[in-house]
């Protein structure tokens, strides 16, 4: 690893004027690619949300026609009443779109692309054309994934976890083409991710500006870098498993079919060996971004920077040896359950370290409550709940009862929404001025935040209680069980919360698009932040830096005794 940056002025593309298509559609500029990922992912975030609304309707009012549901084809709904097989598709595609086409690309595709070169002082990624390919491949994967809704037999309906044999045998699920498209779509997406991760790693290792040593990197970059390593190592495992399942569906192989010597549990091992690092892929960049924003909002250095880096590494490393905690009740040897339980308990520790360090950053700070900061604070407070609920499932005996109940659903959504999505909102509000050269409305941002925070908790906190009743997941109609009927009121409450949560996104959508044209012109550094990206115009030109910056100190020198200002950009020398 070298600390010297390699000059890549040539990658800035020369001085000839590019066509509109080369500039904004097939662009090799990491910033444009990041913005392309942003628009695509926000679209899929909305799609995933709408699918969830249909699920929640059926759960809140089982067997009642969805308003406007008459437009749905009779393979999905009968007179507007969602059919059980379509409900299973909704469950599957909500998870699939949210994990693979919303959260992951929002964190890794958008902010990995946008921030890495800017924050390390590089003109672009190491491989700009591969970067462009990475976006368009992901776009193609999205089309393939949407196409599944038009397949005979419906879209994939075996859960986003796609357990075999249900996912391998069309005679069991009723789905063939939809499952095939799901598999192909994810394989294609995996290619995009692997190309992207390879690019990020190379860029961070090789293109840091002079003075940008490893331990002067912002935590967002550390997190994105380590995440990229996880992606590089985990996605191929998923791709392998997907290909085997695809062969079972199309070529007559029997990898997961026990009647011909296959092993259903092997799917779970392969999927979760990828799947657990995947959830850390979904949270680590969020943690890194939150660190940057909290330090900025507190006007204080991150508390325990080195511990924070260590914790990211520890989470990433331990994340490889906990996958069996998704399989405690799977029928695998119970002794394995014990070993996975121990590693899972241990991985709680680095997350605790990070939480306390964020609190330490706030302590004795000078806290400004701009919209990004509000979202970052929500991350910390909500992620903690998600992390703590994980301890219940980590305890194998408690998991006997809680596995595959709404307790898990609550946990997932507290870490993915309460965690990742609030961090994403924070990131969007924070870097929007730099990306688009305009300020978003602070007032609308705060309205969006408060409404989202309230209705998000109204929607997901009661799910912990439902889980305690034993309420199973992926259940089309809970009223079929006597023991669940008393809690149908809770289901209705959650449904109402979900609809209000969706409605709460309207101020955000309005703010985002209106500000593109009508927002106040963004100054160079509206948040008075230390990062290198704030030293270049909003938006930055192609090539980012007119001359390669030189870095003189760490990323969190806020309220330093060496300055009168309460911030100190990384490339600014301190006058003695």
């Amino acid at each position, binding site marked *: 690893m070298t600390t010297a940056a390699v000059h890549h002025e040539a990658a800035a593309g020369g001085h000839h004027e590019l066509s509109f*298509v080369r500039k904004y*559609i*097939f662009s090799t500029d990491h910033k444009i690619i990041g913005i392309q990922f942003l628009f695509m992912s926000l679209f899929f975030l909305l799609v995933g949300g709408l699918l969830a609304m249909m699920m929640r309707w059926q759960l809140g009012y089982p*067997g009642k026609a969805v308003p406007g549901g008459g437009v749905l*084809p*009779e*393979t999905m709904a*009968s*007179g507007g*009443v969602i*059919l*059980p*097989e379509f409900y299973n598709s909704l469950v599957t595609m909500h998870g699939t779109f949210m994990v693979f086409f919303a959260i992951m690309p929002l964190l890794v595709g958008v902010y990995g692309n946008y921030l890495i070169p800017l924050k390390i002082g590089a003109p672009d990624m190491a491989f700009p054309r591969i970067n462009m390919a990475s976006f*368009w491949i992901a*776009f*193609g994967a999205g*089309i*393939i994934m949407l*196409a*599944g809704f*038009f*397949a*005979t037999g419906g879209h994939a309906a075996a859960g986003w976890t796609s357990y075999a044999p249900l996912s391998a045998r069309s*005679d069991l699920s*009723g789905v063939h*083409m*939809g499952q095939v*498209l799901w598999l192909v779509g994810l394989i294609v997406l995996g290619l995009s991710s692997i190309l992207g991760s390879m690019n990020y790693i190379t860029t961070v290792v090789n293109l840091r500006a002079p003075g940008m040593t490893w331990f002067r990197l912002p935590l967002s970059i550390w997190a994105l870098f380590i995440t990229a390593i996880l992606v590089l190592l985990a996605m191929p495992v998923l791709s392998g498993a997907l290909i085997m399942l695809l062969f079972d569906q199309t070529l007559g192989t029997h990898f997961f079919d026990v009647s011909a010597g296959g092993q259903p549990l092997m799917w779970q091992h392969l999927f979760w060996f990828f799947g657990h690092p995947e959830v850390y892929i979904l949270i680590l960049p969020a943690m890194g971004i939150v660190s940057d924003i909290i330090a900025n909002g507190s006007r204080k250095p991150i508390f325990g920077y080195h511990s924070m880096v260590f914790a990211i590494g520890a989470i990433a490393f331990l994340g490889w040896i906990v996958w069996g905690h998704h399989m405690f009740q799977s029928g695998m040897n119970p002794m394995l359950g014990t070993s996975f339980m121990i590693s899972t308990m241990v991985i709680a520790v680095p997350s605790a370290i990070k939480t306390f360090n964020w609190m330490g950053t706030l302590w004795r700070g000078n806290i400004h409550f701009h919209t990004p900061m509000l979202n970052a604070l929500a991350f910390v407070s909500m992620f903690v709940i998600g992390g703590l609920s994980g301890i219940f499932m980590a305890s194998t005996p408690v998991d006997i009862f809680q596995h595959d109940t709404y307790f898990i659903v609550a946990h997932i959504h507290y870490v993915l929404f309460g965690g990742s999505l609030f961090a994403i909102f924070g990131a969007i509000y924070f870097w929007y001025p730099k990306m688009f050269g305009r300020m978003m409305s602070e007032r609308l941002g705060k309205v969006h935040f408060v409404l989202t925070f309230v209705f998000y908790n109204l929607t997901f906190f009661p799910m912990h209680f439902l889980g305690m009743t034993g309420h199973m997941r992926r259940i*089309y*109609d809970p009223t079929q069980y006597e023991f669940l009927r008393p809690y149908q009121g809770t289901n209705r409450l959650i449904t109402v919360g979900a609809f209000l949560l969706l409605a709460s996104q309207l101020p955000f959508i309005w703010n985002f698009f209106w500000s593109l044209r009508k927002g106040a012109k963004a100054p160079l550094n509206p948040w008075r932040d230390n990062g290198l990206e704030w030293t270049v115009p909003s938006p930055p030109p192609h090539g980012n830096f007119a001359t390669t910056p030189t870095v003189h100190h760490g990323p969190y020198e806020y309220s330093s005794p060496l300055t009168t200002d309460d911030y100190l950009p990384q490339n600014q020398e301190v006058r003695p």
Partner: protein
Amino acid sequence: MRRMMLAVGTVALCVACGGGGGGDQAGGAEGGDQAAPAAAAALGTASVSGNVLFTGTAPANPAIDMAEEPACRDKHPEGPRDPEVVVTDGKLANVFVYVKSGLPAGQTFPAPSAPAVIDQDGCLYHPRVLGVMVGQPLEIRNSDPVLHNIKAVPTVNRGFNISQPQAGMTTTRTFSDPEVMVPLECNVHGWMNAFLGVVAHPFFAVSGTDGTFTIGGLPAGTYELEAWHEKFGTRTASVTVTDGGTATVEFSFAAN
């Protein structure tokens, strides 16, 4: 590059749409009762009528434990039994009789638009055995306030597996190839079975409780008829009919 993307996307969508496979909602007129053939495409004026006999003691039909489905159990006050073998006074019902060969070569028969109807009531299929033409809509109805799934497990045709979680729901499917017989099953109620005889012509019938059946509209000629029962296998018979005439035929099954 952009055009290629558009083409690839279009191809992906087309591939996804796949090949047909039914699924349109039929506004069905009432059609097809248990014993009468689909009369739509009469070709001639001859007819075959017959009897299906059963000799020996019919085995007792198994009782069904509907404890988990009170809504269905309550429709069977005398205790539900699975009507595998329906014998009344030596006559066997639910035998599917059809013309196996002898029709003029190359003759095609348009499928009627009126659907063949099968109902789920009391967690049993009504009728248990039903004939339907290739291309004719099969309308599946749920008269029970419980979830039924209807899974067709053909070997030649494309199968389907659809659910009807509420009473009053109807779904329509068609078959594209002749197949005798296509089994239907419900996986929520594992005792439920029905059998569809899919034929490319309208010359078929199902014997009633009195053992009788009639196939009309045949052109004069010699035909091979096959009679199928779910437990006792098949019997064949040859019959010759003249214009305006009626031939009789008898099939005989016996307890093993």
